[in-house]
């Protein structure tokens, strides 16, 4: 598996510098979280990682190769993106939706056995196999989120990029989807998440990138980065960081 690295990434949108010489390296097999206040550049960084935006300077490399230079279909096989929101435009059933994840692999002659096997694995990994025949409009929010995650997993990309995969989910579903994302990393793939909830980030992430106004405030293992001083510097809000009885980190805003 190849590392996803960001070198001197600078991006200007509408005259505003949204990313400023960002440096970061994401390691396969670990969950990395991009954290920061609104407008910090998390989604822009995500878009650059997925090669959806071309930076003004600097580059994103996958195993040393500039992601912009990789042929789009090949790139789509290697980097899977789970965009924000749970919108699906047609009431397709779950199996059909998940099979869409195989489109970058699809040859001229339609679905192959490899495609079907990958879809089955993705359905199993997200516990969606029993709901495979259900239409997307008839799923709960958590089920939709899992189905959409399965869609990306079906492509079996080296890297899974997810923009706020836990937003608009209730706590139980957040934990559930979060556990799937950890499973993906445990399987050796790289996972990069944009997360808003500091506590979920502390729970899920091995590594954290703290962003503020397009700049990296800190980057490293979660335990080193999620300190009261760094979090306050990033969010401009004093926090208290503690540990629960079972060792989980929690972050409480103060003030």
């Amino acid at each position: 598996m190849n590392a996803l690295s960001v070198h001197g990434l600078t991006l200007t949108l509408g005259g505003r510098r949204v990313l400023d010489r960002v440096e970061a390296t994401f390691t396969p097999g670990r969950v990395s979280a991009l954290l920061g206040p609104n407008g910090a550049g998390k989604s822009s960084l995500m878009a650059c990682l997925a090669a959806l935006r071309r930076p003004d300077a600097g580059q994103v490399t996958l195993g040393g190769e500039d992601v912009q230079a990789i042929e789009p279909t090949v790139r789509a096989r290697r980097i899977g993106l789970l965009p924000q929101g749970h919108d699906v435009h047609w009431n397709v059933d779950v199996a059909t939706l998940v099979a869409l994840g195989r489109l970058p692999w699809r040859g001229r002659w339609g679905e192959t056995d490899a495609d079907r096997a990958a879809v089955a694995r993705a359905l199993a990994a997200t516990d969606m196999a029993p709901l495979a025949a259900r239409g997307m409009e008839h799923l709960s929010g958590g089920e939709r989120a899992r189905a959409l995650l399965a869609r990306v997993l079906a492509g079996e990309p080296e890297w899974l990029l997810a923009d706020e995969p836990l937003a608009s989910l209730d706590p139980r579903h957040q934990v559930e989807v979060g556990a799937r994302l950890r499973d993906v990393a445990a399987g050796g793939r790289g996972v990069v998440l944009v997360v808003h909830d500091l506590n979920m980030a502390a729970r899920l992430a091995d590594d954290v990138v703290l962003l503020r106004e397009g700049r990296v405030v800190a980057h490293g293992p979660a335990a080193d980065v999620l300190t009261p001083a760094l979090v306050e510097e990033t969010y401009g809000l004093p926090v208290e960081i503690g540990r629960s009885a079972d060792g989980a980190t929690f972050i409480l805003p103060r003030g």
Partner: protein
Amino acid sequence: MTRLNLWLSLGVIVAALLSVAAGKVWVPLDAWTSADPRSLIIVELRLPRTVLALAVGAALGFSGAVMQGYLRNPLADPGLFGVSAGAAFGAVCALFFGYAAQAWLLPGFALAGAGATMAMLALIAGRSGSLILFTLAGMILTSIAGSLTALAISLAPTPFVASEIVTWLMGALTDRSWDDVLVAVPLMAVGAVILARTAAALDALTLGEVAARSMGVDPRRLQLAVVAGIALLVGASVAAAGVIGFVGLMVPHLVRPLAGHRPSAILLPSALAGALLLTVADTLVRVLPTVAELRLGIAMSMLGGPFFLYLLVAMRRRLA
């Protein structure tokens, strides 16, 4: 799904055979092989008309399915980009200036109108690939072409020309010859090939534009393919048959419950069902005991208006 296509194909064949046989005079099918003088009716009148009904229906159904998939909107119509209004205006110009004497001039003008509208659409929407800009530009072009058409009617040199324009605008397949087939069908074939290649991209769009791009879909190339393909299919349809509305809107809806909601899964069934619907409708308007033949375009609107209303009510109920 393949079984659906099989049934639809069977229906198309039966409808086509009936359409060749039926009319003001019933000509049994065995009459056209022998030295029967009625074979002339079949070969020179009925057959080109049936072929055009099949081709125009398939073109409209197919482009409707592509349009709905591309815009991710079940109420989208292939006329939305202004192509059919532009083609109609082109044809109206031919009638207005009296150029319609030559068989190929009117379709030629219609295609020029479709092409010009497409060029303007590309110019207005630019290279942004933005869907909203694009749809709005299409609507504006539709209304401009519509007002120019109205202007042509009101300034028509003689009442005869005005009535000719109005009648033509209603859309029909009366008195079509092999010339019309030869102009329209090759263009439609090219358009269909272009659109068929967008199938996977349309599927990817089910997940929204960002996800589709991350899956390797190039939105600008897709837009170009959709516009060019629709312009060819709809432009050639209007050139051959005038404006026939609602086929592109209705057919994908009728097909979707049977073929599933995946955009690419409804492309072929929509083409087949469009061909079936228009061939049956054209046969019916021919055999109906009306004084003058009912215009096909009018017949489709009579069907389509209430269908549209029904769709809206059904959607409102679901949204409520």
